[in-house]
């Protein structure tokens, strides 16, 4: 079920568009969660709250070095370890070193996109360590050898029949498509893994420098078990996922659970800040926080993209995006799907490599509207396209499409002079003549065929408005004026 990495955005989108069940599943999540989050932004959380949250985020980002130092200091004071990883490679090897030191055999994971970003699972597995996802959706994905397709609903692209067959095959239970039965089977299998694991690996929803904690939210309780029962816990966090104060943390947590699942608060909220202290009954013997740069410093340094680091990964933008609504998460071909992924993936992994993500949206702005921290993703997509149009040295971007660049040069020449524009209109009329039927073009030429394959196109008018103005309106209106 692994998606072939060599497929393009359009090809992966094609696979999804043909899948009516996927369409219905995403529509369900957009209808339920997307619309509910919008309603919460309208009825409960004021625009002022979102504005203040964004302001706090940007203030923290402006002082990120100090805030992270404060976080690290608090955690170290409690006996925790903090590692700053410049790259994905650095981060995953740190995890491996910790695992080796403790002779770890089994790792249980809490849901973490950052772990996918740094590719830690395959490295641990290559050393013979068993890695088990404990979030139900992620567990299903892992059993299927698949990749997640939604930030908070990773297996939204699978139906209960597929999951039933998967569990029958992998867990050896009788076939069932009854969700409670399937959930019980997963719970039983996972409980055994959780009770016997010697290391927990989690992400970090929001860290707080003032208190020295990482905060993790979940609805299944798996994260609490995975982070407190094994003897070692490693938490992975992107360097931006920190708040300076508990007040800022509080603001963001409210936005996170609402944006993600239209919940006032998730079923579990865990605050973790170090190993088990003397006299405490649970918690890991060793706690590691890995703070990951992996390209984020570069975003921080670029005023065009700095604000994307204020994202709290609620996934709200996926729950409203009309493009995501049709193509699903796999088309984005990376750990971060949807509108946020379309901006973040190119910046993390290469703008040219992900040129289709920068160009493949309609810039409708729905993601900007729903974003709890008011991230202007369409603006940033436009900036990415600007880099792709002419290249950008700082981001090592090469111009993406010479044909398109030439076309816009020609377009520019035509639009710079009405005579040239008129010639273009006249040429268009000649070219279209054989194709016009019943007042519409059902077949086109050149790039227009991409349109006319599925849609009619209006022919160029016999008289442009400019011509009509001259021969009709101007005269009539002048007469009225002179009456």
């Amino acid at each position, binding site marked *: 079920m692994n998606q072939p990495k060599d497929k393009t955005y359009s090809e992966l989108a094609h696979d999804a568009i043909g899948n009516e069940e996927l369409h219905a599943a995403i529509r369900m999540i957009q209808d339920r969660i997307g619309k509910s989050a919008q309603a919460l932004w309208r009825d409960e959380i004021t625009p002022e709250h979102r504005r203040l949250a964004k302001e706090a985020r940007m203030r923290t980002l402006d002082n990120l070095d100090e805030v992270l130092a404060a976080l690290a200091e608090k955690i170290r004071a409690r006996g925790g370890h903090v590692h700053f990883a410049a790259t994905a490679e650095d981060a995953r090897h740190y995890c491996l070193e910790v695992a080796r030191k403790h002779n770890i055999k089994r790792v249980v994971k809490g849901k973490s996109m950052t772990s996918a970003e740094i590719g830690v699972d395959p490295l641990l597995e290559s050393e013979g360590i068993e890695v088990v996802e404990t979030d139900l959706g992620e567990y299903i994905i892992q059993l299927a050898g698949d990749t997640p397709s939604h930030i908070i609903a990773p297996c939204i692209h699978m139906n209960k029949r597929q999951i039933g067959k998967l569990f029958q095959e992998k867990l050896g239970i009788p076939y069932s498509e009854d969700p409670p039965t399937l959930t019980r089977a997963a719970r039983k299998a996972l409980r055994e893994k959780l009770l016997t694991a010697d290391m927990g690996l989690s992400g970090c929803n929001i860290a707080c420098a003032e208190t020295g904690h990482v905060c993790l939210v979940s609805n299944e309780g798996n994260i609490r078990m995975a982070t407190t029962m094994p003897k070692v816990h490693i938490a992975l966090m992107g360097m931006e996922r920190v708040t300076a104060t508990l007040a800022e943390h509080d603001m963001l947590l409210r936005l996170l659970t609402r944006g993600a699942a239209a919940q006032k608060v998730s079923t579990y909220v865990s605050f973790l800040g170090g190993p088990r202290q003397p006299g405490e009954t649970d918690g890991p013997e060793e706690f590691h926080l890995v703070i990951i740069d992996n390209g984020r410093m570069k975003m921080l340094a670029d005023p065009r993209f700095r604000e994307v680091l204020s994202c709290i990964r609620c996934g709200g933008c996926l729950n409203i995006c*009309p493009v995501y609504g*049709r193509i699903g998460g796999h088309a984005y071909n990376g750990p971060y799907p949807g509108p946020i992924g379309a901006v973040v993936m190119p910046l993390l992994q290469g703008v040219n490599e992900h040129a289709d993500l920068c160009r493949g*949206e309609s810039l409708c702005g729905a993601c900007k509207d729903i974003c709890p921290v008011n991230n202007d993703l369409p603006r940033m997509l436009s900036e990415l396209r600007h880099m792709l149009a002419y290249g950008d040295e700082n981001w090592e971007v090469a111009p993406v499409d010479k044909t398109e660049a030439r076309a816009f040069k020609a377009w520019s020449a035509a639009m710079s002079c009405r005579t040239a524009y008129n010639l273009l209109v006249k040429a268009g009329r000649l070219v279209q003549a054989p194709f016009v039927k019943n007042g519409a073009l059902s077949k086109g030429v050149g790039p227009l065929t991409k349109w006319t394959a599925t849609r009619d196109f209006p022919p160029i008018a016999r008289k442009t408005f*400019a011509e009509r*103005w001259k021969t009709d309106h101007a005269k009539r*209106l002048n007469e*009225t004026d002179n009456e």
Partner: protein
Amino acid sequence: MTRPTVTLFIQCLVDSLSPETGDAMVRVLERLGVRMHYPPNQTCCGQPAFNSGYRREAAKAARRFLDIFEDSEAIVCPSGSCVHMVRHHYLDLFRDEPAQLARARMVADKTFEFTEYLVDILGVTDPGAQLDCRFDGAVTYHDSCHLARGLGIRRQPRLLLENTPGLTLIEMDESDRCCGFGGTFSVKYPEISTAMVDDKVRTILDTGAKAVVGCDVSCLMNIQGRLSRLGSNVRALHIAEILAEGGK
């Protein structure tokens, strides 16, 4: 009382593909006694180039636009996305050119989308009485993205439609969901664009309305193109064409 004067900004798509929309806008403004100018050398505001990332070409078109329109009293355009371009994106384009930026700000402040101009500036509230228009039948309204989210114009077109004699407005589900046009997106990613317009068409047909009305011919062209390809008789109409119906 002095008559209001506007300069018509007839975007390239209306000029060449849908001039009847321009005609309709002229007829409506004429009925309201508005004095109109039309600079014949206008072409395009630069939006297609801007949205595709070609900002040098977009800036060239934008400078030309400012040259042509900067002395106007008020600029009125039958398109939300073109007004969004002038009002908001020109400021992005000229962020490093203070002189142009000042001109862009000045022009932005006096550029209006057609329904915005009618309702907010001219105070049109009763098109039946003020325009003597009439449109018989049920229509549904599509909120174009840049109009609704970019300019915040949702109320004005609805007010005009609701008060048009003979017209019943039936709201579709998710009226502000993108139709999938997105400029060059529609031909760069035609399959995604078509899947999106199919979602839009479904919500339009669910209302049972005989026409879908909007304020941007680009979206309407996309919706109409898909509707007629699917064999539907539902028409996509610019609001100016509704307001110019019937009457004198």
